[in-house]
């Protein structure tokens, strides 16, 4: 569904993204993890057309979308959400989602009806008239998701959709995301909440300082020493390994 080939982006001397490559197969949930500042959101911006890569190619659904603008990429079926939520504050929840629905629907009545449907899908069915500006952070994240969903995407790019949510809210969103995947939408998400990453993703990529340092099944990847070092610092992998060896030795002694 999505293929990123050796994409590079340099900002005034800083290599935000260096030769990053990845594949997101159709119908799967793939996650992108990495410490803060690794370049994950930049990569999303490159894929969704907000920034032009310096080199490399991006293929979506078989077509080259490397230099396309965000709105035409959206029409092709690739939609992104934003890490810092961007609601249309002065509009109601329903009007917000309807903007997404209008990508495929022309008549206002149809768009509003579709918006109500999608709102119900994400659990916002009762909040249609509420002003988007008055929502809690969880509400806004849900709204962001609903808006993107209303465009009938083939691939959904979710940027830290769980940031700022509590445990219950996270569980709810995880269920919703699974539901979205079951309905046939491919999902590519950036996340810090490891619990979600583990339970949701079929495959994981790890980005650190603009470079892809690992990829694989979530469980493999999180025990990869290079990945541990990226998050916890140099030498951390060895220290953790040493502690667990010590613990297992102690256990065998007790037993």
């Amino acid at each position, binding site marked *: 569904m999505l293929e990123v080939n050796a994409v590079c982006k340099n900002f005034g001397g800083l290599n935000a993204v260096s030769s990053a490559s990845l594949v997101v197969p159709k119908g799967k949930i793939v996650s992108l993890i990495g410490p803060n500042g690794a370049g994950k959101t930049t990569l999303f911006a490159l894929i*969704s057309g*907000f920034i032009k890569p310096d080199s490399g190619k991006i293929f979506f659904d078989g077509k080259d979308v490397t230099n396309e*603008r*965000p*709105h*035409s990429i*959206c*029409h092709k079926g690739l*939609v*992104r*959400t*934003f890490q810092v939520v*961007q*609601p*249309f*504050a*002065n*509009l109601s929840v329903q*009007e917000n989602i*309807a*903007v*997404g629905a*209008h*990508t495929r*629907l*022309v*008549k*206002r009545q149809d*768009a509003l009806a579709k918006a109500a449907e999608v709102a119900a899908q994400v659990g916002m069915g009762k909040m249609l008239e509420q002003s988007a500006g008055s929502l809690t952070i969880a509400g806004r994240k849900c709204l962001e998701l609903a*808006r*993107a969903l209303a*465009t009938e995407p083939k691939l959904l790019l979710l940027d830290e959709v769980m940031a700022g949510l509590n445990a219950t809210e996270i569980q709810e969103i995880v269920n919703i995301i699974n539901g979205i995947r079951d309905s046939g939408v491919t999902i590519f998400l950036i996340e810090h909440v490891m619990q979600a990453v583990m339970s949701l993703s079929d495959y994981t990529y790890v980005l650190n300082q603009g470079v892809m340092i690992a990829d694989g099944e979530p469980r493999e990847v999180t025990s990869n020493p290079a990945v541990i070092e990226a998050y916890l610092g140099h030498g951390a992998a060895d220290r953790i390994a040493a502690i667990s060896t010590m613990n297992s030795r102690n256990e065998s002694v007790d037993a």
Partner: protein
Amino acid sequence: MNNRVRFTGWCLLLVMLSITPLFITSGRWIDFLEMTMFVAVLGQGWNILGGYGGQYSFGNALFFGTGAYIQALLQFKFGLSPWFALWFALAGTTLVGAMVGYLSFRYGLRGSYFALITLAFAEAFHVLSRSLPAITEGGHGVQLTLNQNPDQAIYTFQFNFAGEFLKTYGFYYTIFLIMLIAFWLVWMMERSRFGAQLVAVRENEDAAEALGINAFRVKMGAICLSAAITAMAGVYYTQKFLFIEPGIAYGPAKSVEALFAPIIGGLGTVIGPLLGSFFIHGIGEITKEMIGQVFGNRPGVDLILFGVILVLVLAYLPRGLAGLAEDLWKKIFRGNNVRS
């Protein structure tokens, strides 16, 4: 306040406006209402780009003046019927709007920079209209010949010699009709996909782009519509006053009038420009009366007041008079619910 209520309210208002002339004989009242509706149209043109689109133009005189000039010049130089000329005026002004829009939006101008460039364009046309007498008659302005033949009144779109009724009320109903068309267009726009996309771009351009909206195209559509509607006001002006010159056409006065009404009345609402226009002209008349008795008839009084109202509205009433009305309506409604 739901759609049905709004629609009913509008029908009532429009019926009242259409039969008012039959009950009022005072020329001053007719003039007042004509002026109110004229500024309402001017304001509605600005409202499309400014209220709904969030792009504040400080140079809408550009569209007014171009519409007025094309209408005047085609009649003056080529003897074209005003009914033909007006289509050229609308088309020509829309083209000018497209040009300004293309340059501004293609280069990503927003906020203050956009306001400045519209100012520059209006000023440029002001200078051009004054300095190219071969085309625009320069500082003399364009004076259209007065038609004194009652049979030719409709053909020449001049009502001064067209019989009692048309002479008194002809232009009242003209501007009423124009207002009807302009406001209907905006009412439809509000309920269309284009309107939803325009508002989305105003609220957050990046998020709108991410949802498949071509912000450039949407803004271009808005500025063209804005230009066309403002041009209608220009056409009306030419026909009513039969005279246009650079200062009236492209001077800052029209640019400022165009934004007072919607801001005070309520940005991004259909009724805003009319409410705002009615309010400021009403207060203007009252003030001129009061001050006139004390200081004599001195210019500037009403504009001082308008400026003060503008600042007060911006500070304390961001959604304008229409917003205030909505809030009051909700209070009354909620009050009812609690009681029952």
